[in-house]
């Protein structure tokens, strides 16, 4: 699949359903992001971003600026 060509960035967050709506506005209009989703079923409310240009720090700043916790999960 094409996704293997891109980097997958994985973050632990404190997003809730309304938080997902908040960040959806930010992430969906960012042309550098190919795909993203939040796994609310996971205890770590995982944010997954597929992009080949964004750095983890850049994503983290965007989410923090929206008022939510976000830290990159190490491999």
């Amino acid at each position: 699949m094409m996704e293997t060509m891109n980097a997958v960035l994985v973050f632990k967050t404190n997003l809730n359903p309304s938080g997902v709506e908040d960040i959806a506005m930010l992430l969906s209009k960012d042309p550098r992001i190919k795909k993203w989703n939040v796994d609310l079923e996971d205890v770590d409310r995982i944010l997954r971003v597929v992009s080949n240009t964004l750095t983890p720090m850049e994503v983290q700043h965007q989410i923090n600026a929206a008022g939510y916790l976000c830290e990159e999960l190490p491999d």
Partner: protein
Amino acid sequence: MRTRDENKEETIRQKAIELFVKHGFDGLSMQKLAKEAGVSPATLYIYYKDRDDMIVQLWVWVMKKMVDTTLEGFDPGMSFEAGLKLQWQNRARFCMEYPMELHFMEQIKYSPYHEACSKKMDAKFINTMGEFVHNAIRRKEVVKVPVEVYWSVAFAPLYQLVKMHMSGRGLRDEKFVLDEKTINQTFKLVLKALKP
């Protein structure tokens, strides 16, 4: 940048199917799987979007294994008897070699994931099976009946015997082992039933 690692991916799949079969849907959280497979949760999310995506992808992977095994040495132009015999051998081999995977497929069949999974069914496999039967009907080797009837007569007897073999018990709870003789005996009856 993170890259995919085939070996790691294989370990994750095996562990996921094992957890799923042993503990059901609830036993398979991304966190539990990460611990069991000895990887970080972040690694799992490189391969899968979330748990639902993982279950569908696992199904696709097991299905591919099943299809590859079933079609080994098979050609839809084969005579009905030879083709069906090979199908029986291949299908039985898959069941014996991959019992966990088989169990997983069965559980999916009766779960809400069934719909999402069946959309990903391999069309080539269905077409090959269809071609085989239609060739045989044209050659008057097989009766023309609805596909569900055909499948139930052609394969369900084999799968029932395999199930008994895997539980190790027959109908009266005595020891049961599926041997060549039993397979051949059943196969002959199935052939007779499907003759025009």
